């Protein structure tokens, strides 16, 4: 009647087995984020919905934070962990500024974040981080992380609950994968349109994505923030 697996013993009487009730420190607050690196700009976008199970905690809780005029970080996953990690980064950047008399470069923040994440390797920050900004040459940079600090610089990345919906679209539209097409550099306007379309589409199909979209555009002039509506259902 029941299929068995190796090591399993089937008996004909009730068996006493200890049950452990444990507090689970993690919670998935959902949401989606993406970042695209351009020739001389970088776009970091994230929705603003915070969920818990089938409920919405709030329609506007920003997931992205401006760290400097050249760097923006965005995090998804467990919001409590994400916010704590953000504060740690901001505090470390402030100490760096006091010690060295200059703002941390995007690459320096990138490495520091990896170290911070790995320091909690045995009780991780449940956060999917994407760091977007301009490198020392003024070119757009996107750094992607896993929750324990493995990181890599990429041209574009999407993370969070709808990442599996948006990433393939970005691979096709930003990196021209799986199509016979002339690769060309994309303008800021084109990248913004692809970003907005990605989020409106993800909102249709992913229950955790929606409410508002917050876009951070990083250029040599600084960081500009745009907010637009997404469907609230």
């Amino acid at each position, binding site marked *: 009647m029941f299929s068995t697996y190796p090591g399993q013993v089937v008996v004909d009487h009730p068996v006493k087995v200890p049950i452990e*009730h*444990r*507090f689970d*420190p*993690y*919670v998935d*607050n959902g949401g989606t984020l993406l970042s695209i690196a351009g020739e001389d700009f970088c776009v970091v976008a994230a929705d603003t919905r*915070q969920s*818990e199970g089938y*409920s919405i*905690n*709030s*329609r*506007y*809780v920003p997931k992205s934070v401006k760290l400097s005029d050249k760097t923006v970080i965005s995090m998804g996953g*467990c*919001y*409590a962990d994400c*916010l*704590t990690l953000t504060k740690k980064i901001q505090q470390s950047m402030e100490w760096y500024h006091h010690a060295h008399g200059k703002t941390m470069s995007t690459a320096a923040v990138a490495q520091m974040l990896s170290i911070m994440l790995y320091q909690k390797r045995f*009780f991780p920050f449940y956060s999917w981080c994407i760091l977007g900004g301009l490198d020392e040459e003024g070119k757009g940079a996107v750094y992607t992380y896993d929750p324990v600090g493995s990181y890599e610089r990429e041209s574009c990345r999407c993370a969070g609950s709808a990442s599996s919906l948006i990433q393939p679209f970005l691979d096709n539209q930003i990196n021209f994968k799986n199509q016979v097409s002339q690769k060309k550099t994309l303008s800021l306007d084109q990248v913004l349109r692809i970003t907005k379309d990605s989020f409106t589409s993800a909102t249709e199909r992913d229950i955790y994505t929606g409410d508002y979209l917050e876009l951070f555009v990083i250029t040599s002039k600084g960081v500009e923030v745009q907010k637009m509506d997404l469907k609230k259902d």
Partner: protein
Amino acid sequence: MDHFPTNWGNPRSEDVDSYNTYPVASHSGTVPHSVRQIAGFGHAAGHPTSHTQQPVVTGTSVLGIKYNGGVMMAADNLASYGSLARFRDVERLHQVADFTVLGASGDMSDYQYVKHLLDSQMIKEYNADDGHTLATPNIYEYLWRVMYNRRSKMNPLWNTFVLGGVHKGEGFLGAIDLKGTPYQSPSIATGFGSHLAQPILRKEIENRGGEENITEEDAAQILKKCMKVLFYRDARSMNKFQLARISAEGVKISEPMSVETEWAFAEKIRGYGA
């Protein structure tokens, strides 16, 4: 793995468990006198220290809504002991500073501890005597760190707190739960309220085109409507509650009140009537 060369080459003794790999009956007596003894400091394996609990005496939903000029909150006066309505005069809305109210749902003993922590913090700030008092966002961040650090030690304060206040002319309304998750919103509802009351609060705000268009009387009416729904449908609620209003003039927590409820229709229902 035996690290000691003097033991190599000889049969291992089963009586000695140097690394506490399994529980061994201890001969120390029946009643433990300290946590260190239970943990087995100094001799054979004891029990591991365990933390994570379950809430015992609990409060149900806390509601909050922003309106034009401030923030209003509501919570009933019941602290339940499981299904027993044990304490029926509990004030789950607590004034903290001049312009802040803390609402607590979840374990009431942890709420009392947090009240003590906040009082201590307020005294420290008063002693600094620098003309500043803690504002709502400051208290919010302090409370968030306390909750987050406790959850990170796997020993949470089993509450969902709502913090409402007024800061720089603007209303502030936020919640923090036992896992240290903070969020702010024009309307907040914890526990059963998140399912039964939050849709009503959000609809009322939407119908009026934003919280700036809700008056103080409107806010009170909306919260009373929600408290009525909660009394009908939440089995751990009570029809005796308080409203707290925070505005530029300060904090006012009302006397306990009730809402009108209809039960007469039950007479007409087979199985419920006489």
